[in-house]
């Protein structure tokens, strides 16, 4: 039962036909695929402590490329099922930044790291990667810095707001006038949110202008844009930072609404959309693999 449920955690994009990867002789290495992406980024590519191979052998012969917002077990299994052995994702398969170790706290950082690396889940996932000869390339900082703002574009496209950008700011959109409730319902539908959405504001609040910040927000930059908008649509933000700000704003004459859908779901449309522009760069088919909202809520 669990297995069946987990199997439904991943939905595969309908594009393409099964077995297409077999048509390609696996002669291109994972390192060469990345080199092609770097060449296409040109001067916009920067050396990053984050971007790089997070798992697997860069000399792997690539049978197919998969793009996903999260290289979870479910995603890796879906990639394998489609003959893809190079997975490109902004996230790490091993839950945190590799080699980044924070300040030792009450939880004893060193002990946690040691135990995590020995954990059956961690070792089984690594074994799966080895067994299926997968490579995982983390494309994060360079993706975010790309001039075309792929993550914002992803939400704009899926929400039908492509022609509705504020000419003065490419993260602000002017959808047809609506209410907070109607907007939240539309976001929920288009981004595939199950239980991960949180809102601040009154449902009948009129909405004209929306600031879109996928992923995790920078409060210092975002707070300065809030006077220009009614709503912030974002992924992940801390409750002692701008969540408090939004909550407080309802005690003033200039209330602001918040729609937070979680970091992963907010980045998924943009990451999935990269498949189409990575394809000509790498010269191989690139298959998008969706993840579902991990969060759910109790029946009322």
């Amino acid at each position, binding site marked *: 039962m669990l297995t069946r449920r987990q199997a439904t955690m991943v939905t595969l994009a309908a594009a393409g036909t099964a077995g297409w990867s077999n048509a390609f002789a696996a002669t291109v290495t994972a390192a060469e695929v990345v080199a092609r992406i770097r060449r296409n980024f040109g001067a916009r590519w920067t050396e990053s402590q984050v971007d790089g191979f997070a798992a697997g052998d860069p000399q792997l012969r690539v049978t197919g490329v998969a793009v996903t917002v999260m290289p979870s077990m479910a995603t890796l299994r879906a990639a394998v099922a489609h003959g893809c052995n190079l997975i490109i994702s902004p996230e790490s398969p091993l839950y*945190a930044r590799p080699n980044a170790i*924070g300040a030792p706290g*009450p939880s004893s950082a060193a002990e946690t790291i040691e135990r995590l690396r020995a954990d059956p889940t961690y070792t089984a996932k690594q074994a799966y990667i080895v067994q299926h000869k997968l490579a995982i390339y983390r494309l994060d900082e360079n993706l975010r810095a790309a001039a075309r703002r792929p993550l914002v574009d992803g939400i704009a496209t899926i929400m039908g707001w492509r022609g509705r950008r504020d000419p003065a700011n490419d993260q602000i959109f002017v959808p047809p006038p609506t209410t907070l409730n109607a907007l939240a319902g539309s976001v929920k539908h288009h981004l595939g949110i199950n239980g991960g959405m949180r809102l601040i504001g009154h449902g009948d609040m009129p909405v004209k202008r929306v600031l879109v910040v996928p992923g*995790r927000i920078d409060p210092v930059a975002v*707070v300065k844009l809030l006077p220009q908008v009614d709503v912030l649509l974002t992924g992940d933000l801390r409750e002692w930072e701008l969540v*408090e700000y939004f909550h407080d704003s309802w005690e003033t004459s200039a209330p602001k609404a918040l729609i937070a859908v979680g970091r992963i779901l907010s980045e998924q449309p943009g990451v999935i959309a990269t498949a189409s522009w990575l394809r000509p760069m790498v010269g191989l088919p690139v298959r998008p693999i969706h993840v579902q909202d991990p969060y759910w809520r109790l029946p009322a």
Partner: protein
Amino acid sequence: MTPREMVERMIAKAAEEGAPAPARAGYRDTFKIGDPDVQITGIATTGMSTFRVLKRAAAEKRNFIIPHEGTWFNDRDDVKGYVDQDPLYLAKKKFCEDHGLVIWRNHDLTHRMHPDQMFVGQLRQLGWTPDAMPLIGRMPTVTLPRPMTLAELARHVVTRCGAHAYRIAGPPDMMVRKVAVGVGYAFPNFQMDPDVDVIVGGEAQEGTDGSLPSYDLTEFAADATALGRPRGLILLGHMGTEDIGMQVVAEWIRDLAPGVPVAYLPAGEPFARPD
């Protein structure tokens, strides 16, 4: 009595009860606004000094507010280059000045107490007895009196803490025997005890940007489940886990201020009721 004297008494009482002194002065437990040397008319403790809490405190003639979290929308309460020109910040600040409010943040001290006052509040709220007393570190575990499914457990905790904007990850029908309890953002993890089935906490790292030991617990739980070891997570929100600890603080400071009215004013969850 003045806010400054009150804070001195709290620190002295904590020391008497065995809370270790901090290695160096921190930036969190400081006065955020107001004159620490005025006479206290009344005290309000709260999880967060939201504008709504400040208005209620002023209406009740409580001029000394003791929140657990920050007032100015960041951990350091540093407004420079952030909100120092912002109309909401200016309005909240002016409200404090107009009503003579004094705010002292009580964060690190609550967590240094033995036991940590935030965990005392949350365990009491959830109606659970931790497996070990005194609490070791900041990660109490609770072996449930009877195993239950994740859905049953979630029903219990959201009912007890009254959270509406909660989030649950993991298979609803997985059996839960042992739970780790987190408060605020300070999370336990699945490595502290391999028998922990579910973590019940406030808010968590999202994505894999974290520096270990902080990591993406939701992803880990999903992968563990996919690999045959079901794990779950119940996120109750920051105030769903730490507001209540400031009720513990209100009780703890009451005898330090004879004749001064002390009340716990819950900040409540900031999010709207879903649906």
